[in-house]
């Protein structure tokens, strides 16, 4: 329901055409994945059906020139959404975790795994850092978000690798 | 109370529980306090040493003027004063008049004529290569050693020589040694002043040093206290903890001081000049003073710690220095020296030995010298603020001093106070020396003289003959003095000549030693007129050859009473001035003297009252003077041989100088130690920064230079202040003893030079640590 809430939020600033909505969504949130035009309309249609938006018909305009406005119900829906905490992502079933466990089970070097993964992570982090340092505030916030997550992955890997060595030493000892 | 104890003990635990650096700090403070305690204990031991010396000197003293009949266990004795090199050797002639005659303390047997017993120090001196010119001075029949109970100190040079030539007139007859014979001899105001100044000058820096030592490593201590604050201690508790820490160090310092004191006790007797030496057993502190040291030192250290803590704000998150941005004010710092000068006014207006005056002078000195320590921080701050940019090393040093000159100044204030005091003291000693020395005597013809006050017929010939044979003697000339009593009616008018006067006869060369002669030929007669004396009228008649008391009563007994010769002062007698700078000139006044050449006496053979033999010495023979003394002693042990030119200062002052030197060296060593600690501490604190600077490629030269400048700038300022204060004080002291004012360039130069050298050496000694600290390990984050 995130795209819907995003559109609703954007509409709080004032009524807008579907195309304008897509553009402002892409500007703010669509860093990597621009919103498909069709998805905008299907989402708006659903919001319309639920009574969260209404159409301000413009005289002599086709369906593409419909102007959408948020309803009172829509406003309270956005407020409720913002007030409700997001469920923290548990990341309990990450691939990395699986790989480490498997490496351990199959007797592979966990340090190698870490190094390879770090190289890969750092490559991405470098790109993100460059983009952040050259981009605008939105870029910076988005990139930082990603950078922190990637860093968290690496930290976890490092801690795990250290523990794996401890464990291995214990097993061997 | 319980909280107090808890906090104090926590402080003690923190100080020893702080790992290596904690122990290092503790050891530094303990050593510093220990050095101070040692100095104080040494000072407290001086009275017992003096007492013991006085007691033993009294036990062997000789009471004069007793009327005793010879034979009943009696002894004739006379004092012998001699000198070897610069050391005084005072001995006694003993002439027992029966087998059970009294023995001086430390001597176990009666001495036959020619027997000599020596003090161990004199025995060693005689046996040494150095003592060649001394051998045989009192014969060579050494029959024993004087025991400790007969000596003032282990290093004393003295002897007893058996003789058979003493008479009632030349010696004292006694029945026993010692007794309350020496009247209580009050110190002269001059010597008292010297002692007071000396004590203040040597002990005040100790106080400064101890208070400096307590602050060793205080910055890391403050950080530790901040950590204690973080876990909930309040300000009061931090103070008590700090006090406990200091107390632990101070108590340890007392122990260190006690040990050092014991070491000093064993060695100090050998460091002072022989005639001031003492036995280690006598060297023990006055119990009351020792107790005072034991109580006052820890209390002082705690007080210093607490007052130092007032300067900083120990907060849970760190230490804030109070008022570091505030400029120092001058006016209240000037109160001390100004007050000191006011208290010292008796120096200029007149000295007496009243207790009040002494207290005033000591207080004045303390205030004035403390004033140096107080004005110095201001001076350094004010100067450093105005210093311009220079090289990198200079800039680093100046900037550091601008930000915080406290630490540097603290170390230097001890030096400044000591140097100021020492300069004053040396000025005083030098002035006293100048006062007692007949400075500009004429030494072009003769360099030494031997005075024989017993005289006797033919004495002049004996002296001339014997002394001419001494090694290093190139020429001799004798001056014989005869008593001239006024004769007949011509002397009746009253005046100096009423009582008679001395007529000295000798060659023109000899007479030139006694007066300023413009021209002289055989047959001339001169009248020496000191200021204010009236010349005897030409044509006055005298009877020559009597003895001084010689009126009609004793005249008959006198050795040569029969040989009185009438003599008339010729009209051709010239009035001349006393010798320049001579003793007579200084004393002023005095009776007139008549100098005659042999031709003016018409060959009358007179019995001299005294004979002065002038001797020319071979400058190539370094020990000529001592060979002369030995030769003179062999003729008559009581004759006094001395150089004409007083060697600057008399023997006693030489001793004081030596003590002063030992004190100065001890002081400088102490200061050097504290400087070293300071340098090391500052380097340690900045080890990381130093390592970074080296990583940057900073040359070691630059770093050493900055360390050196950092030390040198305050030291130069401190020494300048010290020289000014010390010189002013020296001048005031010179006024006090009515000595001619002079500025002792050499003394000032050597004292401040030595102090500067100490600083330089200690800083240099700190440099190896600098190299060690600047190794890359310092870069590791702590």
């Amino acid at each position: 329901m995130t795209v819907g809430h995003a559109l609703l939020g954007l509409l709080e600033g004032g009524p807008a055409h579907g195309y304008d909505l897509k553009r402002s969504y892409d500007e703010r949130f669509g860093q990597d994945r621009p919103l498909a035009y069709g998805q905008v309309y299907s989402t708006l249609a659903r919001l319309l059906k639920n009574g969260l938006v209404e159409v301000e018909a413009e005289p002599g305009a086709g369906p593409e020139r419909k102007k959408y406005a948020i309803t009172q119900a829509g406003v309270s829906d956005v407020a409720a959404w913002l007030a409700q905490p997001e469920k923290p992502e548990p990341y309990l079933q990450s691939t990395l975790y699986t790989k480490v466990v498997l490496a351990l089970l199959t007797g592979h070097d966990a340090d190698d795994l870490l190094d390879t993964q770090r190289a890969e992570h750092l490559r991405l982090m470098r790109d993100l850092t460059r983009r952040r340092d050259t981009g605008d505030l939105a870029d910076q916030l988005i990139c930082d978000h990603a950078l922190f997550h990637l860093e968290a992955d690496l930290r976890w890997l490092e801690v795990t690798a250290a523990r794996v060595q401890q464990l291995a030493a214990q097993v061997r000892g | 109370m319980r909280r107090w104890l808890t906090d104090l003990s926590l402080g003690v635990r923190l100080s020893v529980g702080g790992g290596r650096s904690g122990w290092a700090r503790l050891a530094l403070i303990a050593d510093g306090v220990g050095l101070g305690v040692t100095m104080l204990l040494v000072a407290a031991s001086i009275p017992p040493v003096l007492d013991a010396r006085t007691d033993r000197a009294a036990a062997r003293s000789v009471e004069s003027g007793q009327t005793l009949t010879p034979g009943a266990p009696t002894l004739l004795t006379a004092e012998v004063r001699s000198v070897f090199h610069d050391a005084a050797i005072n001995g006694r002639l003993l002439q027992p008049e029966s087998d059970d005659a009294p023995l001086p303390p430390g001597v176990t047997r009666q001495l036959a004529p020619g027997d000599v017993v020596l003090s161990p120090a004199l025995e060693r001196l005689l046996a040494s290569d150095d003592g060649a010119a001394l051998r045989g001075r009192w014969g060579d029949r050494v029959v024993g050693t004087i025991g400790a109970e007969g000596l003032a100190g282990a290093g004393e040079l003295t002897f007893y020589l058996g003789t058979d030539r003493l008479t009632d007139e030349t010696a004292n007859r006694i029945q026993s040694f010692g007794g309350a014979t020496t009247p209580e001899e009050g110190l002269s105001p001059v010597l008292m002043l010297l002692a007071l100044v000396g004590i203040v000058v040597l002990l005040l820096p100790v106080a400064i040093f101890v208070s400096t030592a307590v602050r060793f490593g205080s910055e890391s201590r403050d950080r530790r206290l901040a950590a204690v604050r973080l876990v909930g201690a309040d300000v009061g508790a931090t103070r008590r903890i700090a006090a406990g820490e200091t107390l632990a160090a101070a108590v340890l310092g007392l122990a260190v001081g006690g040990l050092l004191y014991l070491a000093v006790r064993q060695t100090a007797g050998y460091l002072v000049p022989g005639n001031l030496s003492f036995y280690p057993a006598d060297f023990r502190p006055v119990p009351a003073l020792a107790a005072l040291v034991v109580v006052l030192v820890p209390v002082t250290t705690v007080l210093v710690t607490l007052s130092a803590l007032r300067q900083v704000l120990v907060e849970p998150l760190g230490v804030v220095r109070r008022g570091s941005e505030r400029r120092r004010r001058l006016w209240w710092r000037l109160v001390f020296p100004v007050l000191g000068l006011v208290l010292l006014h008796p120096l200029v207006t007149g000295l007496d030995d009243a207790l009040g005056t002494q207290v005033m002078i000591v207080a004045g000195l303390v205030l004035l010298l403390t004033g140096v320590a107080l004005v110095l921080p201001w001076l350094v701050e004010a100067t450093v603020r105005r210093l311009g940019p220079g090289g990198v090393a200079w800039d680093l040093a100046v900037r550091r001093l601008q930000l915080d000159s406290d630490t540097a100044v603290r170390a230097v204030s001890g030096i400044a106070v000591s140097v100021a005091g020492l300069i004053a003291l040396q000025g005083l000693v030098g002035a006293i020396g100048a006062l007692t020395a007949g400075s500009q005597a004429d030494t072009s013809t003769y360099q030494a003289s031997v005075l024989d006050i017993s005289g006797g017929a033919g004495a002049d010939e004996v002296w001339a003959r014997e002394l001419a044979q001494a090694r290093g003697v190139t020429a001799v000339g004798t001056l014989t003095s005869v008593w001239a009593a006024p004769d007949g009616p011509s002397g009746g008018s009253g005046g100096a000549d009423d009582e008679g006067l001395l007529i000295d006869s000798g060659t023109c060369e000899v007479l030139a030693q006694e007066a300023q002669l413009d021209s002289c030929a055989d047959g001339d007669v001169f009248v020496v007129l000191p200021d204010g004396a009236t010349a005897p009228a030409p044509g006055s008649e005298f009877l020559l050859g009597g003895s001084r008391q010689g009126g009609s009563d004793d005249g008959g007994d006198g050795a040569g009473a029969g040989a009185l010769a009438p003599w008339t002062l010729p009209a051709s007698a010239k009035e001349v001035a006393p010798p320049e700078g001579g003793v007579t000139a200084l004393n002023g006044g005095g009776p007139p003297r008549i100098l005659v050449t042999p031709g003016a006496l018409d060959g009358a053979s007179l019995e001299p009252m005294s004979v002065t033999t002038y001797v020319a010495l071979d400058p190539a023979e370094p020990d000529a003077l001592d060979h002369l003394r030995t030769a003179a002693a062999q003729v008559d042990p009581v004759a006094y041989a001395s150089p004409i030119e007083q060697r600057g200062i008399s023997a006693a002052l030489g001793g004081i100088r030596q003590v002063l030197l030992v004190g100065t060296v001890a002081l400088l060593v102490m200061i050097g130690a504290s400087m070293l600690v300071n340098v090391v501490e500052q380097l340690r604190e900045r080890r990381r920064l130093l390592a970074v600077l080296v990583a940057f490629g900073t040359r070691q030269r630059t770093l050493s230079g900055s360390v050196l400048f950092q030390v040198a700038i305050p030291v130069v300022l401190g020494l300048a202040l010290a020289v000014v204060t010390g010189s002013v004080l020296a001048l005031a002291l010179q006024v006090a003893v009515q000595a001619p004012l002079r500025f002792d360039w050499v003394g000032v130069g050597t004292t401040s030079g030595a102090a500067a050298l100490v600083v330089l050496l200690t800083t240099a000694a700190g440099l190896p640590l600098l190299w060690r600290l600047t190794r890359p390990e310092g870069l590791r984050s702590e």
Partner: protein
Amino acid sequence: MADEPLLIAENLQLSFGSTTALEHATAEVHAGEVLALMGPSGSGKSTLLHCMAGILLPDAGRVTYAGRDLTAMHDDERSALRRTEFGFVFQFGQLVPELTCLENVALPLRLGGASRRAALRSAEAWLERLEVSDVAGKRPGQASGGQGQRVAVARALVTRPKVVFADEPTGALDTVNGDRVMQLFVAAARDTGAAVVLVTHEPRVAAHSDREAVVRDGRVRQQELVR
């Protein structure tokens, strides 16, 4: 990267007493390259940096800078090299507390023999470039941590060194300040064409680099993988 590396450390071996700090450590930096040395605490990454900078001498192995063997140089020569060709940024405590920030930046130039006036003038320009002109007259103690590190960066770059060695330059800073310092640092270093050897344990800081090498137990691991 076809050109010859500017600074090469080969097979470095170093122990402090019984602990081995480096064991066959090999690393290289090209001109203008930013190399991150990563690894856990105590892995030997700082020691490697000190060896590469000629501060520490390895027991065995060789460090070559622009064709010159650092390990064979006299101490004075290495000092001169550090003064003229290298720059340094450390985690903390590197600024002389008595000097103003401006004077701190001017210090390396003055150590190199520049006149006081000229040194201060370029120092001013560098402070401006790192956006800390406002602390020029203040002492380091009066500047914030981030400002202090920027001053340190300015000081490292003021001599226009060929290599800047940075040991956890943001270690004592929060994320925002640390990022800003790294951003300004790397940008300025790239502008002057300086290579950077950056020791860090933080991946986010390492992300400012062109390449990373991982040090573990005194060995450089990643180097082998790249080949």
